[in-house]
């Protein structure tokens, strides 16, 4: 079976092909392309950016310091940013298995509610591929549930430290009213989810390879 993300990518590529690229200027100097605002330097000489080369996949997660430009207000931080997680390999290999599991479970738990919000709003998202996006989000919810159950079982075998959960409540319950803010907020939430899901995957993978020390082929 294909990896999950590959399926998602292929599905969305189909959606992508059917959409017409629209461009128009926005106030903030951005361009709406494919329904998503792209912030572009307005009346500036051509300057290829890292984004142009596909370097980034995330919009800014923070307010632009010191630029003084007017731009559409953006959410700044993911709701799970307050959780202290290892941020590089050395830290990740250092912390105990129980802590890794606890972090993974906390992150997973933190996304239950936002996924519901995403699922509800995906259907009405002003995007041509909103149907497939909605389907994918539902699959994500199911996968999350299954993984969460499995991790609960695992944590019960690993001791009390693995059982601790950090609460990371999601306060936003609406992704916006107008089209642009809807798209922006949706995009932002999805990028947060993507980051957190990669965290969870990495932590669990480290845990697995640690458990499979005697059997490297299982790692």
């Amino acid at each position: 079976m294909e990896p999950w993300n590959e399926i998602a990518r292929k599905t969305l590529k189909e959606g992508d092909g059917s959409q017409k690229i629209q461009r128009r200027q926005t106030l903030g100097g951005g361009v709406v392309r494919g329904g998503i605002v792209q912030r572009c330097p307005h009346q500036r000489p051509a300057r290829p950016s890292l984004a142009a080369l596909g370097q980034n996949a995330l919009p800014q997660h923070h307010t632009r310091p010191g630029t003084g430009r007017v731009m559409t207000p953006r959410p700044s931080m993911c709701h799970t940013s307050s959780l202290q997680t290892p941020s590089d390999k050395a830290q990740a290999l250092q912390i105990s298995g129980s802590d890794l599991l606890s972090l993974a479970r906390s992150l997973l738990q933190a996304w239950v509610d936002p996924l519901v919000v995403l699922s509800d709003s995906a259907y009405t998202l002003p995007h041509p591929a909103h149907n497939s996006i909605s389907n994918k989000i539902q699959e994500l919810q199911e996968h999350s549930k299954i993984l969460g159950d499995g991790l609960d079982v695992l944590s019960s075998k690993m001791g009390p430290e693995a059982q601790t959960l950090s609460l990371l409540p999601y306060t936003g319950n609406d992704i916006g009213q107008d089209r642009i803010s809807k798209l922006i907020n949706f995009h932002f939430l999805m990028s947060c989810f993507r980051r957190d899901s990669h965290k969870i995957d990495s932590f669990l993978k480290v845990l697995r390879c640690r458990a499979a020390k005697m059997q490297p082929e299982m790692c």
Partner: protein
Amino acid sequence: MAVSSPSSNILLLLLISSLDWLSTPGCAFVSDRDHTNPSAPLEPHFTECISREQETFRCWWSPGTFHNLSTPGALRVFYFKKESPTSEWRECPQYIHSNRECFFDKNHTSIWIPYCMQLRSQNTTFFNDDDCFTVENIVRPDPPVSLNWTLLNISPSGLSYDVMVNWEPPPSADVRTGWMRIMYEIQYRERNTTKWEALEMQPQSQQTIFGLHIGKEYEVHIRCRMQAFTKFGEFSSSIFIHVTEIPSRETTFPLAVVLVFGIVGILILIMLIIVSQQHRLMMILLPPVPAPKIKGIDPELLKKGKLDELNLFLSGGGMGGLSTYAPDFYQDEPWVEFIELDTEDADSGEKEDNQGSDTQRLLALSQPVSHHMNIGCSNAISFPDDDSGRASCYDPDLLDQETLMLMATLLPGQPEGGEASLDVEEGASASERSKRALIQTQTAGPQTWVNTDFYAQVSNVMPSGGVVLSPGQQLRIQESTSATEEEKQKNIKESEDRGDEKKQKELQFQLLLVDPEGSGYTTESHARQIGTPPSSPMPGEGYQTILPPPAETKPAVEDNQSPYIAPDSPQFQFSAPVSDYTVVQEVDTEHSLLLNPPPHQSTPPCLPQHPFKALPAMPVGYITPDLLGHLSP
């Protein structure tokens, strides 16, 4: 672990691709499009930022058309890392000016935290909003190493072959600790063509290429990327695969020739031997075929042209015909001979002694009877022939005891209903009246037995393999000391049907006289048949005999009636034997009776169709049950 990948990637990145379309570089296009003047100044900008192993990364910049800024140090790199609300722009930790590169080592690299890059000259800041990224998204792994191939097989036609390609993960990528998960993509093409064939991506360190052609040279290379991300690393250097035709025909040719010549030579030798009529060798090479033989039949009859005689013989007519015993009863059904009666009583030992002695006596008296029963063996004795390949003959000694016991217990006591009662009523003695009543009641009960011939009421099967028969018979055995005598009587009764009736009667009479204590018999009944009313004591309390019918009544084995003793009414329960009466359902391979065959295994409930629900509770893809033991808190 391909199966585990869907669930292991669950959280992954639903939308790598959605974010692809969400984050397509629109600005640049717009800017380019708007900009029609080719000589418009190009600002200093970053060309690329790449991480090789998700632990460090580098960024390269270009001064653009601002050539005055191309001197080293004219442009400075600043980055912004949002770690805390008080983060600020910092300068590049390590410059490599020759390359216009900024290197971020392990201490300065954090995963999952956004970086933004900025170029500053003396008085200008060149910054693009979109120059922000997180390190995991810019990872391009190094190419795998140690690429090599082995030949798997060649097709029977000799035109194509399969090859197994294997490699090592890139040394910089830490797959051993699980920090990176890498997928590999093999591409191959014929030499001097332009189009690469790409195989499906997979995470293993080996892959098979099918269907390469003999004689053609192929070029193969490989690249990899992080699982659930989009950026591929560089291709490895190519290896070349070339398999030429294998000259296998020549080696097989002489082998075939040798084989053919060998076979021909052997055939010629055999022909010579046959032709030269060397008798001994003939015997070795072509052993004689045995003539047809049937047990108990004169071989002469089997010769051609004597079919009528054979039929006559087989049907039992004429002298020396096959006896009309029913040997098939215990000969064709092998399970019968292996059942041993196991009287599981505490005082069965005593009975066995009695039984043994009685049986011996019976054997001595009724030798011809048993002899008749051993139809197969007896015929073997009477018709000796050359062939020794006869099927196992019963051990005569063993069979005697067993058949006696067998017939004693297995042949059901079939009271002939009214006839038995009739016989009883013919009796004149008053002391028989009570028994008569019992007999009558008894006959009413086991009527059901009549319909099921040769069914033994098996009530229990002993671990030793013996069969414990129904309570009806058990009670009889338990109660009467002369139960064995009953059996003997039954045997005698049965043998009546089989052979010389008069002879049997004489035997009975003799037996009765010999055994004065035979308290189990209503000897009057026997005497009635025989014609002389003996005056043996009446049976004691506790049992009765069912009188056997006149011997002339019915043919064959349906008539066999073993006289069942009817115990006293309080003890006797008609319903019990009937309810315990079990039909033998099956005979399994070990010749044991299966009275209640095991019920068919119910099919396990079908797994639900939904693939997600089929996943177990354990986090599939991350931890398997055998790894669970190695996890330490």
